[in-house]
């Protein structure tokens, strides 16, 4: 163990946030350290996406504090993969341009990209199997392919914290497994915070769990039981553990 004091990436204290004066989240306390992998669970409307928007800086806190650590460079080294439906499929833009746009946060505004950026974009496309699509318009891609593009975009600025909002939605089953492997690798270099409905599948990768339902309950391990969830009033369908990743389906209603 290192004796150097480890600074958190991000520290949230007694924070409340919402929209148009309506409070969605209250009494939020959360500290994110380097190499954390936090799974965010909770019911719809419980404020999961709002929490992510506060962390990215898209909405300001109403009360309380949110401080970025030095590693996050005032929020510029955050990679953000928003929920799927928020883009215009008919917008005239090529895959490569979407990915490059993810690097804008840390670049100067005039003529921002150099050879290193283009090389990084090429590597990211190779990693996610998009190389053959780089000169296609974004509207030509399937939902799963588009999600890979947005993952590459989030990784373009070499983030210290990667924020994912339901990354497995609309993704084909083949890529879903691949995605979690990629995230597992990325987690060696960066902290990840991920909203998910489907915690059961990814439990082997997630290290800790935050349950968001108006407030936030932090569970400092991924070992979590149904009873515990009930105490947190956090309805979730199923969580299992095992030595290998596995999926448990609902019991059949008919014998």
């Amino acid at each position, binding site marked *: 163990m290192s004796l150097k004091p480890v600074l958190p990436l991000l520290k949230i204290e007694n924070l409340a946030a919402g929209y148009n004066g309506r409070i969605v989240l209250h009494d939020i306390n959360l500290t994110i350290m380097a190499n954390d992998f936090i799974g965010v669970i909770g019911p719809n409307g419980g404020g999961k996406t709002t929490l992510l928007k506060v962390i*990215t*800086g*898209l909405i300001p806190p109403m009360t309380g504090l949110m401080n970025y650590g030095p590693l996050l460079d*005032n*929020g*510029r080294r*955050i990679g*953000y993969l*928003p929920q799927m439906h*928020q*883009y*215009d499929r008919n*917008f*005239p*833009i*090529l895959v490569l*341009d*979407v990915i*490059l*746009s*993810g690097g*804008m*946060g840390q*670049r100067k*505004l*005039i*003529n*921002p*990209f150099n050879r290193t950026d283009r090389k990084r974009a090429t590597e990211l496309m190779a990693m996610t199997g998009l190389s053959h699509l780089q000169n296609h*318009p974004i*509207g*030509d891609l399937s939902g799963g392919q588009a999600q890979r593009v947005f993952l590459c*975009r989030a990784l373009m*600025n070499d983030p210290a914290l990667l924020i994912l909002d339901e990354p497995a939605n609309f993704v084909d089953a083949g890529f879903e497994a691949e995605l979690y492997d990629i995230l597992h690798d990325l987690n060696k270099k960066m902290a990840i915070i991920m909203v998910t409905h489907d915690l059961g599948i990814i439990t082997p990768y997630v290290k800790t769990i935050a349950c968001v339902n108006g407030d936030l309950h932090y569970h400092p391990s991924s070992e979590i039981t149904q009873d515990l969830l009930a105490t947190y009033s956090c309805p979730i369908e199923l969580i299992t553990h095992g030595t290998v990743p596995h999926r448990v389906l609902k019991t059949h209603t008919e014998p």
Partner: protein
Amino acid sequence: MITDLTQYTFFTNAMEASLLISILCGIAGTWIVARRLVFIAGGITHASFGGIGLGYYLGINPLLGAAAFAVASANLMLFGTRKGNLREDSAIGILWSFGMATGILFIFLTPGYAPNLMTYLFGSLLTVGTMEINLMWILSAILVVFFVLFYRVILTIAFDENHARAMRLPVELVNYTLMTLIALVIVLSIRVSGIILVISFLTIPQSTANLFSRSFNHIMFSSVAISLVTSLTGLYLSYWLNVPSGATIIVVMVIVFIFARLMKWISLSHFRR
């Protein structure tokens, strides 16, 4: 025939104005079409008629009044729909009709000479003056420099505003600057193509280019080229047929669009076979 016509200053002016409106509207229109702001552009265009009327009433250059009305309404629309919880299409409707109404009232109240409204409604390419051409050169230079320098920022924000905001890009500053530039593009284009027809320069060449490319900068370059070719063709045709130039140009643009659409349809069905 061509050498005959270029002897006349009014005709060379018209050709120069065609080039400039193609550059201005080709670039601005690509942004407008990509962001689906065509009706906001229509609203700005019609709102500026109020400024033209005010210009006549006060005895100042109507272009100056139009510029003031256009810039104000463009920024009001952006502001109102963002902060004022006003529905965008309703905001457009209000400014659109208010601009036309005040324009007509001011012109009615202006004593003495009643200006020819048709010039402003349908444009008059053949009577464009040196001062307007110089202004169009200046605005073209500003617009081209702005798009060359900030191309990546503009594209990033236009495609995904929320993501750009999360990356700390100056989203509001860029949007308001672009809206102001577009308001000025519209005002200078009104003199050439008229209030009613300016929207065609902002949408038809872009839609034609969009049939063959879905890359932002390709559409921008092709729109300028398509716009230039169709407006010069329309200009010559209007001279030979002795019909209004603005309307002829629009008809040529639409014919080219339909022809391009058919070409694409034929080539697609050919490849499928």
